């Protein structure tokens, strides 16, 4: 896949070839950010809610072992079969073995970023199991054979005309039809058939309540419920960080989740699943997949507080102007950029650099993850671990040397300004990425330091040439 070989900058540059599309993508996500702002500002205690959620998650991360065992114990009492998976392979194998033992060859799946991380669909399809994504956005992405570009809005990068084209190609809608209502009706008709005929349904988990052994799945489409209620075998896959200690904590998290994600007061469906119906089997798979390794990294453990609302993506100007697929990782945007290096540092070495460190992400985050500080820290780790390009290492060493000495700095500064003034084409050329779409600053004849030496000292404002020896009053 071409996507696998290009870094964020190259993929983002390709995304920017169609500026009108970038404007549309940016505007659509900014609109959601504004809806989030309105929802957040309608609640006077918003900032206290964020703080409370952040602290509850701190407690969870510090006591994860105990909460997981408590959760497992309660699940078992409720009649749910619990599985533990260390990695994607083990998770996929468990799902497959559950289906195979019951000779099930078709499964319906609601939104689960974890199963995207595990590449479950590909795994099952290779083994003859037909999987259909029931979340509309994920359904569209599946038809188009593309991963989701956003954790809440999987096909936000596609315009309705593109979706109409995909439906025409795969579902046989009339060519040129792009009316969202018509397309949705068509998808619903197709999915309804799948809901009724599938014996197995897999859902994700938004919140897993340790004290009761229940889990909560939030959707706007009711697709998780439809799948679960009509299935003989209900499977839920969750990362081990999804635990919350008590049911009463849902009052905090459910208020934060939908407001942060889309500006809604709450998701249309916030469904609690606790015990199987008569004749139904329920399975829950607890998946580590790098979580415990991340938990062991003091600078990055708080990334596991994430409740997958996507607010950091919607607010991130880099995300809005580069598209989720440019992050070449299941979880894109700022949160993806601090989670991905934990999984594969070499492959994702570019992601912490796909940010201006503007800090907007950390301040919309409903669980107050210090995302931009972690981006900065990952940069340090990636360089220390040797994943920075050699040219960059040399450049940075040269810069550090220049700036460590006042003499070399002023010589090079003077030289730089002289070049700008006298041979600008040496700098203003196609090899200079600054100059491609921007002018260089004018090269003033005199630096401030030179001006100061001439003017202020003559004026008597500065008398000593050795300020280091002076003790200021």
């Amino acid at each position, binding site marked *: 896949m071409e996507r696998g070989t290009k870094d964020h900058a190259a993929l983002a540059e390709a995304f920017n070839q169609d500026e009108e599309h970038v404007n549309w993508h940016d505007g659509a996500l*900014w609109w959601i950010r504004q809806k989030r702002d309105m929802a957040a500002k309608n609640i006077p205690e918003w900032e206290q809610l964020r703080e409370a959620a952040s602290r509850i998650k701190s407690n969870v991360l510090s006591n994860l072992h105990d909460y997981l065992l408590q959760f497992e114990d309660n699940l078992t009492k409720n009649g749910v079969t619990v599985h533990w998976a260390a990695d994607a392979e083990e998770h996929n194998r468990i799902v497959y073995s559950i289906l195979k033992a019951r000779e099930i060859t078709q499964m319906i799946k609601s939104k689960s970023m974890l199963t995207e991380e595990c590449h479950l669909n590909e795994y099952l399809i290779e083994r003859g199991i037909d999987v259909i994504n029931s979340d509309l956005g994920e359904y569209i992405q599946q038809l188009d054979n593309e991963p989701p570009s956003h954790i809440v809005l999987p096909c936000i990068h596609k315009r309705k005309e593109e979706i109409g084209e995909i439906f025409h190609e795969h579902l046989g809608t009339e060519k040129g039809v792009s009316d969202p209502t018509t397309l949705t009706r068509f998808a619903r008709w197709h999915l309804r058939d799948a809901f009724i005929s599938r014996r197995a349904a897999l859902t994700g988990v938004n919140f897993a309540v340790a004290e009761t052994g229940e889990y909560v799945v939030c959707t706007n489409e009711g697709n998780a419920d439809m799948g679960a209620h009509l299935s003989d075998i209900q499977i839920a896959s969750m990362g081990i960080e999804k635990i919350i200690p008590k049911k009463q904590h849902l009052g905090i998290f459910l208020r934060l989740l939908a407001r942060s994600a889309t500006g809604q007061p709450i998701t249309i469906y916030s469904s609690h699943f606790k015990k199987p119906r008569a004749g139904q089997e329920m399975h829950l798979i607890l998946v580590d997949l790098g979580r415990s390794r991340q938990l062991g990294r003091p600078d990055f453990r708080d990334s596991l507080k994430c409740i997958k609302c996507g607010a950091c993506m919607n607010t991130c100007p880099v995300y809005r*102007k580069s598209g989720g697929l440019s992050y070449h990782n299941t979880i894109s945007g700022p949160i993806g950029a601090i989670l991905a290096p934990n999984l594969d540092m070499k492959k994702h070495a570019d992601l912490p650099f796909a940010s201006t460190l503007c800090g907007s992400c950390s301040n919309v985050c409903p669980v107050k993850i210090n995302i931009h500080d972690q981006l900065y820290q990952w940069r340090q780790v990636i*360089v220390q671990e040797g994943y920075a390009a050699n040219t960059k290492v040399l450049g940075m060493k040269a810069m550090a040397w220049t*700036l460590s000495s006042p003499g070399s700095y002023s010589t090079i500064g003077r030289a730089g300004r002289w070049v700008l003034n006298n041979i600008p084409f040496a700098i203003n050329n196609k090899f200079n990425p*600054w100059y491609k779409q921007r002018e260089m600053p004018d090269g003033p004849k005199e630096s401030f330091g030179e001006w100061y030496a001439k003017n202020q000292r003559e004026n008597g404002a500065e008398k000593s040439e050795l300020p280091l020896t002076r003790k200021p*009053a």
Partner: protein
Amino acid sequence: MTVGLFIPCYVNQFYPQAAIATLQLLQKLGVDVVYPPRQTCCGQPMANSGFEHLTQDCNRLFLENFSEFDYIVAPSASCVLHVKQHLHSPDNPALADRTRSNVYELVEFLTDVLKVDQLTARFPHKVGIHQSCHGLRGLYLAQMSELNAAPFSKPVQLLNMVDGLELVDLDRPDECCGFGGTFCVAEEAVSVKMGKDRVTDHMKNGAEYITSVDLSCLMHLEGILHRNRSAVKAVHIAEILNATL
């Protein structure tokens, strides 16, 4: 009170007029200002690129130049934030701690330390404020749009004292311009697109000048304005606060 004037490396080389305005403004307000001539850079370009371990010499030099001043003031929120967060000294941690807490961005020094309540400046133009992210979300020079919290703005507080100046409202009052240090060349396409969109917002809302507490943002926006032969100008806030025309 003696203030050590910290003029970031690129301001020294490319924007001496902003540094001069900063010096003159402080002097007008009766402050004793000293510019230590042996200063270079705070080390931020290396640190933000993942090379914080190479900034030891910059830190040492910064302490040599500035540790003895009562206050250290710079016309750059970004560099100030870097120093506040990352100036360390293995040999003398206490000195580094004290120095970090004495560093101020110019605007916050004027509003919080000098408590300036009037200026003699005149700048009869329509001005849009570009909020530097490091000034806004790092130094809290104004309230950010992300939080449900009471609004305030130190730059606006000062600009409101300037005769004839009219502030323009923006569609997106605090979105990043896309400079981002080495991001501006490493992620050229996104950086420029972000900058273009900021410039468009200011132009659409009638700004004649774009001002900011950070020249790095302005250098980037100015590069885009110049390329597009725009009549809109980028100007550091010190130049407005020091303007008498």
